[in-house]
């Protein structure tokens, strides 16, 4: 049984109805997508701005109501009605660690909330639980009575992780957890996350825009473009052996020491307009392999062998 299963999950943000005329169709931030995360697995989700990765994350933790589709955690359909039940299963680590801590609450108050609200622990039990968690994220207990602004980004992110752990969830959604951090601190946090996963038997969904980071931490990787999954594959092979031209473009664009500077695209081409999406493949406008078929028909996600799936009419071969 997978830890997390998503079926045809989609989100459309309605647009304001104009004074005259019919309501516009709305912006499809996430197009219907399906995937599974096995227990103990880290699924990486990678994509550029506007690909819908944050919308996906917020739907998974119940902060945003999906427009359609369903989410299952350990075989049970997710029920938004009871936030307490829900918070015990799945938790969220935010991108901006400072912004995710209430500036007027001490760290102890922040840590106590999930223990009290979700698990109903008494005072002494809470204190011992907080000590345990703080030890496992390498934070000193003297930090508990301080306020968020006294911490650096790396420390604040550890506190954010500690808060998520306090709920004792099965799954943690990590939404760009290290992109606000400097590289030397980023490595500390990534290693900590890897250790915690082994220690507590967690399942991760790791969202980022950084290819190298996602490759270093994930078992499998989902590549998103314009609100849809374009490719899913194993971390060690997806960038080395991409099937979808967009995945290849991403891999070729990442600056790598020792590789000469080449622009995979000369033209200044970017995302299509979300208010006026193209009828076929969203990437067709930038794709060197695009044909009339691509411009007319949205490609389905197809099995490409070796645990790899790609949504492309003309996938790349090795």
């Amino acid at each position, binding site marked *: 049984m997978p830890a997390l299963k998503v079926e045809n999950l989609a989100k459309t943000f309605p647009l304001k109805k104009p004074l005259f005329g019919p309501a516009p169709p709305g912006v499809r931030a996430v197009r219907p997508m399906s995937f599974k995360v096995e227990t103990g697995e880290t699924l990486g989700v990678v994509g550029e701005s506007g690909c819908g990765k944050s919308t996906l994350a917020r739907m998974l933790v119940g902060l945003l109501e999906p427009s359609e589709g369903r989410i299952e955690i350990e075989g049970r359909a997710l029920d938004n009605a009871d936030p307490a039940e829900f918070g015990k299963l799945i938790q969220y680590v935010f991108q901006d660690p400072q912004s995710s801590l209430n500036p007027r609450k001490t760290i102890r108050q922040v840590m106590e909330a999930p223990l009290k609200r979700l698990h109903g622990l008494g005072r002494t039990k809470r204190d011992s639980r907080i000590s345990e968690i703080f030890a496992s994220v390498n934070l000193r207990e003297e930090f508990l009575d301080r306020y968020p602004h006294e911490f650096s980004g790396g420390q604040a992110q550890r506190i954010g992780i500690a808060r998520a752990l306090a709920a004792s969830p099965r799954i943690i959604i990590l939404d760009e957890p290290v992109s606000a951090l400097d590289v030397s601190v980023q490595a500390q946090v990534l290693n900590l996350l890897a250790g915690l996963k082994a220690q507590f038997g967690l399942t991760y969904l790791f969202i980022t825009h950084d290819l*190298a980071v996602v490759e270093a931490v994930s078992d499998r990787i989902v590549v998103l473009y314009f609100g849809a999954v374009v490719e899913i594959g194993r971390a060690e092979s997806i960038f080395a052996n991409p099937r979808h031209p967009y995945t290849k473009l991403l891999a070729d664009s990442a600056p*790598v020491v020792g590789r000469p500077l080449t622009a995979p695209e000369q033209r200044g081409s970017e995302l299509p307009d979300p208010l006026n999406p193209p009828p076929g493949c969203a990437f067709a406008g930038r794709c060197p392999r695009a044909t009339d078929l691509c411009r007319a028909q949205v490609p389905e996600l197809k099995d490409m062998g070796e645990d790899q799936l790609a949504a492309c009419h003309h996938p790349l071969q090795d």
Partner: protein
Amino acid sequence: MRAFLKLLFRNGLAAMGAVVLAAILILVLITPLLPLQNPDSTATADRFQKPFSEGHPLGTDHLGRDLLSRLLHGTRLSLAVGIAAALIAATIGSAIGIIAGYFGGRTDNIIMRGVDMLMAFPYILLALAIVAALGPGLMNALIAVAAVNVPFFARNIRGITVGLAGREFIDAARLAGMGHTRIILTELLPNVLPVIIIAMSTTVGWMILETAGLSFLGLGSQPPQADLGSMLGEARSALISHPHTSVVPGIMIFLIVMSINLLGDGVRDALDPRLRSGALSRASATTLVDRKSDIPAATDDLLAIQELETQFHVGKRNYRAVGGVSLAVKPGECLGVIGESGSGKSVTALSVMGLVASPPGVITGGAVRFQGEDLIGTPYETLRQKRGDRVAYIFQDPLSTMHPLYRVGQQLAEAIRSHHRISKVDARARAIQLLKDVRIPNAESRVDNFPHEMSGGMRQRVGIAMALANEPEVIIADEPTTALDVTVQAQILSLLDDLRRDRGLAIIFITHDFGVVAQLCDRVAVMYAGRIVEEGPTQAVLGAPAHPYTKRLIACVPELGGGRRELAAIPGLPPVVDDLPPGCAFATRCDKAQEACQAGDVALKGAAPRAVRCLYPEEAV
């Protein structure tokens, strides 16, 4: 709280306001205990006594009532009514604002429509209508003034709440299992409270004025009871013959309102965190210069930064953001400056043309020489003529660094016309050509776009075009691709590389990304805690880093193609630059550190172009 009071009273005017207000408050509180005459007892024989007459220190009014006694009782009444109105308005208005802002959607829509309608009235019309319906009287005036101010609070607090409700800590509270009421009371309210206090302290004076105003019109307190407004209103008919009866209550209102305003400003300044750091100070046109040390001699480099020291003076603290940095570029060369946040790399870049915001920035030492001429401390006009003409900048976030209200063509043309006398038509043609140079499709129509109509990548191309406008010798690029997506970054980097090869540009490229440096730069300097710790040709530095910091930082960065792995990490945090330890700033995080590292200054040593600031380098240079 103590810090707040300290901040408040450091502001002399606020302290003065507090003292005056406290004096008035004490006076009116003890008024019933003072040996004063009955404020309402008339003595027509003694009418219009001048101030300082016997038994009547402030004189008497048209009915011979003692003005001092009436003044103190009137002040009591005015203050009580004004403060009560403020409290009522603040409570109701804030509650409405918080509910509308937190729940959003339809609730917000309906509430704010109502608020908008109330605000569509010039406020006095609403107050007059309420008084007209309820009838004149002090209580009704209080209700009217409070009601009129509810929408102001509601709108103000709603705005703040909407901002807070979108913050991630509210989401986090929801995930921690908190309900709406609990979130509003324990998460939102503590953050909104300072704003409510600011809004109250800045409006209470005004509400006292308003109630006094209604009484002045005869619609508030009714005789014989008098507040300050009705005293003034009654005195008006005798204004010309006996001005003192008007002046006395008028000056009291003025004193109350002024002291409240002074105190309110002080409260606002003390509670507003932006003002605490002095960030609201206006930056001067160039960075302040206060050089105590000798100015280094000229070299023959195109652009040379020599022993540059830039500090931020915030309160009593001195942040040594740049602590003696020397760098130089030759024509056609690309120099990378790499470091983590707080390493001083951007401040170094901005110091070159005096663009570090002052206050708090001060250049305290060294020189920046362009073709041998020292730019630091040069007169403003000389510096201005070089800015954008000989040395141009590209900044990080192209949305916030372009003026939102000018078309990109205007901004490009302005860059040219600030330095060259050409006609508007020619400038526009040149702007279009520049957009073509940076490979913007449909340049002829794009030239009339506003920045917000372009995507991030397009905007950064315009940013580059703006830097190229006057064909400068040097371009300083401060993290120009950090805000961009990786595919767009690749486009921009290759554009920059082509341009510098075609035009022989010298580029100083500030970044935190080793991959970018490796692909673009000929030489690289690594900064840590405001100083250069290592420099040399890019291949040499990245291939065989000599400083332990460089070596370990490179190891931290995961590289694409490496597969799943444990990453090397550097323990600890970079030091804060207002209290640097002696010797090597990295010593506390370095596993090779010895006692000597922290004993004294470590020099940057090596055989040019390689140099390293380390006593026990990883590689000999």
